[in-house]
């Protein structure tokens, strides 16, 4: 890092907005990780347990299934569940018969696997809670075949009315084929909490970093320092590079710091187990995800794309900052750009929805895109939506920075 970049970093760090921004990121980090821990709930033989005790209990139950989810695990779990079902008391509510408390508590330890089975064997358009009540253990052993059939059904007769081309179907089939079977299971709630809260964290990070980067160029115009610095030898060259480098370094540092706080808090509360599990076991909603990575892989990819989304927003802020007279006007435009796409409703048009997902603000919702079967077709390429978001963010960064450079270089003091 050269001396000028050091000075520009010092300017950024010493601003009050940085302190408030850091505080904001810290608050969001705590809200995303510590608060959900208090709402955790589980059940043991005596009934409901909450908070840290629930996390401990869930870890204990998950330990029974740690490792590969072989067909035997599925058939055994169904057999065990149905055995309890046959002997346990039942209660009827609204014409529907449920297990009584005692039976429910006895079957609860099997819930992680029962949940996967319920998702896997339900019809494509609905979630049938009772499907495991009548599922034959031999049938449960065909869980992976059922998952493949479910995906085939989704691709061929999409319930949302989406029509996939043969090439698209082939792409998704290939992606699914790369998923290691049997799926690997472990307690991964810590990673789930991080990933599920990644959208809000990235959104707040984009907002905070935009506020912090808004004065990089415009404050020089506002304070009148532009006249001095632009008349110096490096004022229209190395200084601009230093300002851009400092803004990107500062943003990356703040992003990493906040994200590490989220990681440290979540993993210290929930534990780091499950990092090498299959991404599909993270949550029943992700069972049919076509992305063949582990939980850690999903975390790293989410981090990378989230970081790129933040850099894209910072680059756009720098572009505005180089062309606007006051940091405040830059901030206003950044807020509009970041938050407006969140209020645009999705349509039935897939292309519109895909383009919407590429806009700042929406770029932060990466984790949600890992569930979907969305390909963006561009220049003859079919790019899965999460990767398209990453590439778009990178492209935004690469396109905005030269214009920011030019804006300051061509600035005239008035």
């Amino acid at each position, binding site marked *: 890092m050269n*001396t*000028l970049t050091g*000075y520009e970093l*010092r*300017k950024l760090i*010493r*601003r009050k907005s940085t302190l408030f921004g850091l505080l904001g990121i810290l608050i969001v980090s705590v809200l995303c990780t510590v608060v959900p821990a208090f709402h955790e709930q589980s059940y043991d033989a005596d009934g409901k347990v909450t908070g840290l005790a629930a996390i401990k209990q869930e870890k204990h139950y998950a330990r029974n299934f740690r490792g590969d989810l072989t067909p035997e695990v599925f058939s055994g779990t169904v057999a065990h569940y149905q055995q309890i079902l046959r002997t346990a008391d039942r209660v009827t509510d609204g014409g529907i018969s449920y297990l009584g408390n005692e039976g429910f508590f006895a079957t609860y330890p099997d819930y992680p696997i029962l949940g996967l089975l319920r998702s896997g064997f339900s019809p494509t358009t609905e979630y049938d809670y009772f499907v495991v009540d009548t599922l034959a253990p031999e049938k449960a052993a065909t869980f992976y075949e059922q998952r493949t059939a479910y995906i085939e059904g989704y691709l061929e007769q999409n319930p949302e009315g989406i029509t996939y081309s043969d090439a698209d179907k082939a792409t998704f089939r290939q992606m699914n084929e790369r998923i290691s079977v049997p799926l690997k299971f472990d307690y991964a709630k810590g990673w789930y909490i991080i990933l599920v809260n990644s959208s809000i964290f990235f959104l707040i990070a984009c907002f905070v970093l935009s506020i912090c980067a808004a004065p990089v160029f415009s404050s*020089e115009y*506002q*304070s*009148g*320092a*532009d*006249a*001095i*610095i*632009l*008349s*110096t*030898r*490096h*004022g*229209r*060259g*190395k*200084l601009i590079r230093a300002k851009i480098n400092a803004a990107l370094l500062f943003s990356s540092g703040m992003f990493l710091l906040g994200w590490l706080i989220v990681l440290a808090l979540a993993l210290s509360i929930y534990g780091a187990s499950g990092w090498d599990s299959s991404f599909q076991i993270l949550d029943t909603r992700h069972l049919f995800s076509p992305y063949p990575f582990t939980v850690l892989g999903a975390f790293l990819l989410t981090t990378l794309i989230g970081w790129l989304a933040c850099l894209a927003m910072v680059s756009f802020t720098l572009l505005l900052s180089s062309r606007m007279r006051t940091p405040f006007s830059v901030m206003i435009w950044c807020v509009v750009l970041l938050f407006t796409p969140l209020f645009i409703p999705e349509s039935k048009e897939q292309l519109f929805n895909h383009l919407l997902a590429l806009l700042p603000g929406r770029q932060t919702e990466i984790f949600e895109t890992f569930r979907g079967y969305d390909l963006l077709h561009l220049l003859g390429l079919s790019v899965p939506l999460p990767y398209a978001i990453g590439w778009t963010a990178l492209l935004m960064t690469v396109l905005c920075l030269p214009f920011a450079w030019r804006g300051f270089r061509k600035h*005239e*003091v*008035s």
Partner: protein
Amino acid sequence: MELTLQAVSKRYGKASAVDNISAHLYPGVYGLLGANGAGKTTLMRMICGVLSPTSGHIALDGQPIALLGEKYRDLLGYLPQDFGYYPDFTAREFMHYIATLKGLTPSAAKHRTAELLERVSLADASRKKIRTFSGGMKQRLGIAQALLNDPGILVLDEPTAGLDPKERIRFRNMIADLAKNKIVLLSTHIVPDVEQIAHRILMMKKGRILMSGTAQHLTASMEGHVWLCRLPEQEAERFSHVHLVSSLKHEGNEAELRVISASPAPPAPGAVPVAPTLEDLYLFHFHEEADPLVAKRKEEEA
């Protein structure tokens, strides 16, 4: 070294801030005189390359400054009017920062910073944050930063604003020391500052150079137009409404008036001609802009 301004103009819409100015500047001290809005700051900004002329060009030794770019800026020291600073930087940090921007090595930056802060009497405050500085201290810091790279072309916009009389004298001496082999261009409202240190004075009005020359040359044009007269106190007041009075001193029941008159005839019986100063010249040309009521009053009287 020759800095050439050739038909330089700057227009904002229909208004001309600088109108077709041509000049050749060689090493020496040039004083820019003019009322507010005369175009001094705009002209200085264009010379420093932070504002582009609408037409015309500025060249150093025949090379357009826009093409010289970094090479030209390397020769430049600029103190803008109302310059911006970084309130959270100490004076030393600010100087090091500007020194880095001017391409000084870290050791040279350290050495020049210490030397210049000492020279502008800020050595004791070098570790204090600029936010704690008085207006005069900030102005001295501004002067020091302009000198960091030992510039060949030094442009100072209102450098003595905010300085106390002692500091002004010290500044004038400093500029006189520095002026050797440098083009120094300074603007000020304080006429004696220019009168004492400028080798050549450029008087600007409404974006144009009204006249230029040495202080003696310019004041010579006022010979026979400046008078000293003594009048009874009551008559002095009436007299000052009709004539341009550059100074008025009460002595008992009488007042001594220094009168600037466009006509070669004595403005009052017993008035004696006196040697004109640059201040008389300034007032003669800019009194209407300095006090708009004067123009109105004259119109009413006519």
